[in-house]
């Protein structure tokens, strides 16, 4: 060989440094070149967008918003929620660079980016018909509007993106004002509504955005715009010249009438497209005799006609389900260890009085300091509760009402037993949540409802009441209240009716990620036992053996008596009306932090 040979070897190896053959993978071009992979890019936009506020949306790693909304206890002492309970929201989470808040800001923009990428590239998929590509653009707009609606509720005004950014774009986008953010959500939702179909032609696409779901985004955004936190002349805490990021700067009744129009439109669309509140045994002002089944179906049955949009998720082994399912089924695929997740995660006695008795009156529960009552008192009062309570809860010592006769749902098979002397004093609450599992039997997964038709009736009840129209308010409220098997509400005093409507919100949407935002946007007295301050749970006295040790606390016969007791204090500070932005994003000195952080 000679020098010439060497040089020529290297010259004829021009291709040698090309991308090696075993390094291939899916690229942007190949993803959007055909329907199969393009639909996977669409699916990822759904998955990441709609997971907002849910456990695996990484808002909160261990636990759900119900653990800090005053609905439930916060879970295991090591769980992330324990830190929220102790120290509230922080701009910097110690363990990583996310904020200690109820949203994952980084994920929000990642979700928006994915939707925009699908929106911008779907036309490359030539094997998808043109009209369907138009629908897909509509659903991507719908997802963008959904996530921005969520961000508005969490933060107020946020930076507005109108495309998938490239590194050459100006990335230093400041926060838009609250009004601009609302306008963007409404405009994007309107564009989605215009582009989307009423129904996807194939059943396998059931669950994707339809016209009504995009309308629901707008309806929800406008209700939050009308609520006192934003719809006010002064912000909850001053942000000086930037107060327009967190407040409209005026209290305007028109925001309520805008909300009415948008919510009426959702109901009208639903009625003509097969979506309605499920009520098989009642009528106007007539309590529904099938309330348990109808409410249970609406919250638990996949793809039922009351749900406009759900987070559809069925991943075996996901911890997600373990936060909701109180049976051994929570540990999917035999992984029973996951059951512990729900062990300290139960309904608080702070929340219990929102539920009505089955005749529509209030139940009388013990208060802290009251003498212990016999267990039979607990048993009788629980049995007399309204159907929604029984669909949502498993009471201590009583087999689950929502899956009668199923061995998995018997009390002994489902819990560690209640709080009490000689045992854990915290975490087992007044009852365990069993919502989303009505008639589920051994199905461990469920669809988390994001828009349920009942929401728009309560939106209307709230908005009409604020505009002084108690007739319309009661009419809409009782659609939900009667469906629950309860006699009509007739209160017409605006202030009292407002509280009744808020109570209806609490009960109807228990554990559905509404309460946490309702109490804040209504600026309720949160620190006084609603989600902050003293949190209370029932304690149960258990019979003892002859040697003084306690008997088995999972056997109903051993329950002697119960009483109410404060078990922990939850941190509340008015800064928490809105979420903090992650400190790292603030330190880039482009966006303004919300007040108090």
């Amino acid at each position, binding site marked *: 060989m000679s020098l010439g040979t060497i*040089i020529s070897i290297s010259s004829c190896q021009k291709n040698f440094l090309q991308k090696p053959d075993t390094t291939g*993978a899916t690229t*942007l071009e190949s993803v959007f070149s055909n329907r199969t992979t393009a639909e996977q*890019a669409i699916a990822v936009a759904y998955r990441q967008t709609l997971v907002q506020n849910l456990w695996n949306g990484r808002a909160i790693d261990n636990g759900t918003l119900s653990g800090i909304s005053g609905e439930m206890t916060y879970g295991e002492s090591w769980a992330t929620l324990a830190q929220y309970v102790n120290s509230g929201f922080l701009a910097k989470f110690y363990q990583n660079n996310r904020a200690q808040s109820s949203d994952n800001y980084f994920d929000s923009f990642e979700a928006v980016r994915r939707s925009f990428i699908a929106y911008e590239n779907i036309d490359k998929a030539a094997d998808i018909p043109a009209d369907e590509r138009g629908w897909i653009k509509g659903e991507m707009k719908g997802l963008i509007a959904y996530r921005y609606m969520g961000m508005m509720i969490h933060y107020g005004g946020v930076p507005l993106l109108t495309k998938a950014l490239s590194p050459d774009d100006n990335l230093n986008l400041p926060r838009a004002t609250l009004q601009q953010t609302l306008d963007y959500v409404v405009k994007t939702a309107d564009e989605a509504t215009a582009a989307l179909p009423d129904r996807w032609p194939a059943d396998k*696409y059931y*669950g994707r955005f339809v016209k009504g779901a995009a309308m629901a985004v707008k309806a929800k955004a406008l209700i939050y715009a009308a609520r006192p936190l934003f719809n006010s002349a002064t912000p909850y805490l001053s942000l000086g010249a930037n107060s327009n990021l967190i407040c409209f700067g005026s209290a305007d009744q028109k925001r309520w009438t805008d909300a009415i129009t948008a919510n009426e439109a959702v109901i009208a669309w639903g009625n003509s497209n097969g979506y309605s509140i499920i009520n098989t045994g009642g009528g106007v002002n007539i309590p529904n005799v099938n309330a348990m089944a109808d409410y249970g179906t609406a919250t638990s049955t*996949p793809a039922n006609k009351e749900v406009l949009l759900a987070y*559809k998720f069925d991943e075996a082994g996901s911890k997600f389900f373990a936060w909701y399912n109180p049976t051994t089924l929570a540990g999917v695929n035999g992984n029973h260890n996951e059951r512990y997740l729900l062990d300290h995660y139960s309904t608080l006695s702070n929340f219990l009085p929102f539920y009505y008795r089955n005749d529509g009156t209030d139940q009388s529960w013990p208060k802290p300091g009251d003498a212990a009552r016999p267990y039979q008192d607990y048993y009788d009062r629980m049995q007399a509760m309204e159907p929604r309570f029984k669909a949502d809860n498993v009471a201590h010592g009583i087999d689950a009402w929502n899956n009668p006769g199923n061995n998995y749902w018997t009390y002994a098979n489902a819990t560690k037993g209640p709080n009490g002397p000689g045992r854990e004093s915290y975490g087992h609450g007044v009852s365990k949540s069993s919502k989303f599992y009505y008639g589920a039997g051994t199905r461990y997964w469920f669809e988390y409802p994001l828009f349920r038709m009942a929401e728009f009736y309560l939106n209307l009840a709230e908005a009409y009441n604020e505009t002084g129209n108690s007739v319309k308010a009661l009419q809409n409220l009782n659609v939900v209240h009667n469906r629950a098997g309860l006699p009509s509400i007739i209160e017409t005093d605006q202030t009292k009716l407002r509280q009744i409507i808020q109570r209806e919100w609490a009960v109807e949407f228990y554990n559905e990620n509404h309460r946490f935002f309702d109490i804040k946007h209504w600026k309720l007295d949160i620190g006084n036992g609603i989600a902050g301050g003293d949190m209370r749970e029932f304690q149960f006295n258990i019979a003892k053996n002859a040697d003084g040790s306690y008997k088995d606390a999972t056997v109903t016969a051993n329950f002697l008596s119960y009483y109410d007791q404060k078990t922990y204090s939850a941190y509340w500070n008015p800064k928490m009306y809105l979420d903090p932005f992650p400190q*790292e994003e603030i330190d880039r000195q482009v966006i303004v932090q919300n007040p108090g952080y």
Partner: protein
Amino acid sequence: MNKIYISRGFLAGVALAMLSLPVMAQKSGVSTKDTSSKTGSAEYVPGRLFNLPKALSTGAVSTVSGQTLYHTPTPNLTNTLYGRLAGLTVSQGPGEPGNDNAGLAVRGAGSYFGFVNSSPYSRYKIFVDGFEVNANAVSGISPAEIDQVSILKDAASLATFGLRGSNGVIWITTKRGSVGKSTVTVQTRTGLQQAININKPLDSYTFANLYNQALYNDNGGNLSVARYSPAQLAAYQNGTAPNVDWYNQVLKKNGSYSDADVTFAGGDTVTRYNVILNYGNQGGLYNVKNTDNTANQGLQRYNVRANLDFTLLKIVDASVDLGGRFEDLQYPNTGSTGTTSGFWNTLAAYPSNIYNPYADAAMTKYSGTAIYPNNPLASIQALGYGSQHSRVLQGNFNFKERLDDLTKGLYLNEAFSVVSYFQSATSKSATYARYFDFANNPNPTTNDRFSTIKSNGITPLRQEDWKQLTATIGYDHKFGDHQLISAINYHLSNYRGDGFTGFAYHYENISGRANYSYKSRYVAEFGFSYFGTDAFAPGNRWGFYPAVSAAWIVSNESFLKNNSTISFFKIRGSVGKTGNADSDAGLPISGQNGRLIYQQYYASAGNYYLGDGSANGAGTLSNLFIPNANVGAETSMKYDIGADVKLVNKLDLSVDVFLDKRSNILTVDNTIPRLYGSNLAIGNIGRQTNKGIEATLAYSDKIGAVGYTVSGLAAYSKNTVDYFSEVPQAYAYNGATGLALGTPRGLVATGYYQLSDFNADGSLKTGLAVPQFGKVQPGDLKYQDLDNNGKVDANDITAIGKPFLPELTYAFSANVNYKGFDLGAFFQGVSGSSVNIISGNNAIQTIAFINNANAYAIAQGAWAYYPSLGIDTRATATYPRLSTVTNSNNYQTSSFWLKSGDYLRIRNIELGYTLSTSLIGKLGLNKVRVYVNATNPVTWSSLLSDYHMDPEQPSGYPPLKSYNIGLSVKF
């Protein structure tokens, strides 16, 4: 801006110029001996393309012979390297057979690239007999096969490596035959291996007492909440309740190691050979027999290496090197393939009092509960075993044409190398039912049921091959006072993995070196690499990496020539550029096709579910990082000044000072706001500086019949991460920019909260900073509020210790011989490193009780104040108050938990006796030596003495010490 593109034509020109200059000059010159093929342990400095006489070398190279490394009996070559090479940081790994690689780093951490979440080791490159190989190909080479191991450290010695050079090169040559009488050498050695240290948890009684104390603490000092009654405590004390030393249950006192090798060497002017067969056998520490159902951890290794040299024709030499290695590893089937490392976490985590190993008196039912399901004894006895099989084959073929007839000193060399590596695993698995208190509760406590053993299929783990081709033109010549040694080389590398190492990597390297010297006094060397890689987009693939160096051999100047004190004195210096193109190492995108940053990739991110009623999973495809077509290689500018001195022909001294400036380090650009929707935009934006000093010293002399040698080395390096686009920090002191790579950051602990710090209602007194990690009480750790905002939070973290890669490595040794006896002791130590004793698996030994955790002696120092129980450790506490619930305040990363990782070990002591020739000559023997040896017998470390944790391996399978005897016979 694009990189400067230098045409291949220019390179050809450079090459021709390098050759033609001496060719023209040669006419008046005088030929010299070929210096490039000189082998053996003579005085030369190994290097790429050619070795150099020690005097003429301009580079910084440290070398150790295979013979020296043989003094450490271990199956893993990396474990023979402690303190042997100045500038090589070696960190001991676990002692687990088959998984005992030590971490290696050449001249510390030059670049943070590749080290995001892991250790700053393993970024160097390895070449065996001139061809690049992977770490797994060398860890099992026996020192008996090795002639020399060198590390190439500076710009001069790394000049020809281009993008393989920036993190140093470990350069290994294997033994070759030489002309002479045939010899047969047999070496064998065997020994016992023991854990250097095992930190055993507290006994049941102590555990239970402290647990009660933790409960009092959690309940506001309420003494009625004890979990263990006085009767139970008494039962632990008198032995009627479980008090199990799980380590005693599952470990035996000694493991074992034996190896043996036979070397045939010799040759004549036509054929030379060195053939070695080697067998090694290591037995692990588990107290379980090898049966049809169980296996102790064990490694058997078979090595064969045949290096053959031929003089074929008058002008043609050829060599064939064949190396092969077969490894069989067995291990108890504790759940992981190839390792039992996770089992050690179980072993450490299970308290003494949970249950006896068996739940029944007949000892047939294993204990186990939902909280502690993995009975350690059953884990090694009842789960079956796994085995792993590996083989490495290397074949090098080399042809050399000596073209002296054409031009004196000119030669060509062509070589081809192929390395193949394959690894597979299989297992025989079983399960067992768990019981608790079988007499009263005959039902199993978990869902596991007894099963007989079943065979599982073979899983391929790793399959890769590496084909390389080189072609060299060399020219060596001496004419008058001038001497030139030079070569130019083309290197083509094609690496391909299948399965999980499924990447292919290609590179091309055109490189050359020319070493010119005048009167053996002044030396100048130029080296270069024109390197092409497939990691980047066209236009960024090729780069030019030159280096220049020089040396002045002062002792050859007339004024020192006859100086009796200074036998040798050389000053040398080098400056040059190398680089790194390992674009997939350590970035958050690695494993996601992240090697090709210029391409946009998509990958699955779980399913989304659609459908009417039942859920249909729709697969997802999610875009990964943001592609960047402009990325290119990291560059390293290296500067080195050194001196080599020999005094009175007895004292050797060598010193090097170096500086390594890195730039263009591939880095995630954190200046991009997160609203971008992806934080994985990567660019050549990082910078780091590394500098240090290395010194070696050796003194040999004789006092009468006693010969002795003392020697020592010290290597210090300190780096600074100048810029890595750190996520913006609230305060400069929070950040990692400007610190050494891996410097721990955390809160500054100032002691414990005392009773006087609290108001009557349990809240902190006004004026005290409030920690944001949950409510505190007396005995909890107190931290500095660095920003004085009244809160202790993430804005109060700062640098709190030394990086765990030690700043200083030192070693010293002494060897004495008298008549046939020889005695040697070898010490090695490090300083300037920290260990976080609550990080990772270390927490098992340090964080007591929380989440059903175990407790160790460290917990006995807990802050406690119970006057009624006679407990008051307020003044003497060495541990925060005990708790059974998560106490995130106390277990933040803080200076409290950061301990010095400094240590000094005796790595080796050996006493040998060589039989006198007169005695053995009659038997036809040439040399017979017997010896006893101890490896790692003693360690001095504050971490070890204060916390019973090994400074290098605080948790997991412990590192080993060993006691051995050996014999070597030469015929």
